[in-house]
């Protein structure tokens, strides 16, 4: 069977590597001012064949390269995880300033928290007017929380009180957000010294 990406997979890989390199430049540049690496970890992936086909089916789209690269926009996916809240926004701003990058859509789930407690910043960009990429930016706390919530969402046989689990997950999300804020305040205070 031909790849859902046609013969574009190498180009997708190249665009992803370019974005990772650019983020590397942003990161090193920020580190000069901050005295610390703003990024705790950086992940990039091209969505697997199976996942992309499954997503096409889920969205009622034909399993074609057009669906995969134009209709669906996260063939290229990046996740940037920062230790500090302000750095999430700084990296967002610098990504948009890149010449080859154009913003298509963004959702600030940090400000507009999802009802379950999920927080992150999602961006969909268009690179070189040709390839879309989805970038998620978040703090370590948000990432930890999201990993647990993801685990819960995909676990098949949950025993126990789901209502209680969900309300406690929300409470933890809100406590983690408070701690992120306090740590950022402390970092501000330290750099004022």
């Amino acid at each position, binding site marked *: 069977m031909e790849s859902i990406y046609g013969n574009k997979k190498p180009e997708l890989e190249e665009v992803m590597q370019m974005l990772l390199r650019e983020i590397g430049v942003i990161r090193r540049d920020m580190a000069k001012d901050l005295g610390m690496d703003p990024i705790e970890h950086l992940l990039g992936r091209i969505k697997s064949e199976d996942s992309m086909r499954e997503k096409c089916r889920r969205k009622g789209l034909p399993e074609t390269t057009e669906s995969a690269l134009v209709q669906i926009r996260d063939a290229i996916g990046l996740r940037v995880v920062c230790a500090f809240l302000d750095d999430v926004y700084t990296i967002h701003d610098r990504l948009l300033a890149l010449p080859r990058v154009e913003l298509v859509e963004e959702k600030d789930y940090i400000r507009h928290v999802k009802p379950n407690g999920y927080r992150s910043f999602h961006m969909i960009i268009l690179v070189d007017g040709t390839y879309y990429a989805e970038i998620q930016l978040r703090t370590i706390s948000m990432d930890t929380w999201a990993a647990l919530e993801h685990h819960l969402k995909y676990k098949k046989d949950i025993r126990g009180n789901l209502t209680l689990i969900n309300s406690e997950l929300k*409470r933890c999300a809100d406590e983690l957000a*408070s701690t992120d804020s306090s740590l950022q*305040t402390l970092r501000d205070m330290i750099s004022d010294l």
Partner: protein
Amino acid sequence: MKILIAEDTTDLNRVVTVMLQRFGYDVDSVFDGEAALECVDRNGYDAVILDIMMPKMDGLTVLSNMRQRNITVPVLLLTAKAEVDDRVAGLDAGADDYLPKPFAMKELLARVNAMTRRKTKYSKGVVEYAGFSLNTDTLELSAENSVRLSMKECELLHLFMLNPGRPLSADYILEHVWRADDAADADTVHLYVRYLRRKLSGVAAAAQIGGDRGAEYILTEA
């Protein structure tokens, strides 16, 4: 609300129990001090009424046992002894109130209501200002989204919300929020104000805390 009454005079015990039940209280009744102590050990009560002169163990002994075991539930003492010294002894032993016999039923009821009032009436958890709310039970600050504050942040914000538009000095704040904590000082207050500033803006509350270290702080609408 759950009450324990320990009174050895059967008729009086019965009358008080029935009256409290009629006013919505859930009542356990015992007739001596040992039974009273067993009950408070086993169950949680919102208030305890103890007669002083009881068989097996007197009310003051029950009371001091309770306080030693860190059972802090409010206690009202009943007794025929009405001298000042007796009242002082009872209050000093850890009682919250003292009612000499004979007493009017409506006074006993009023005093029991007063003792249990704090649990319900004053516990109104949510305060609001400038379109944001603070739940002092859950420590939740909400406007466009919500965060959970630490205890001290919540108490500090609550203090500001009780004094909107009024300048508060660091000393005033320390007295009301950090009370007995010797380690806290003007720097602590300033840091916590900074925490609150960022959290208020994080939830997009239309309010701000003005002021600086060394001067007074003030909560106003943005």
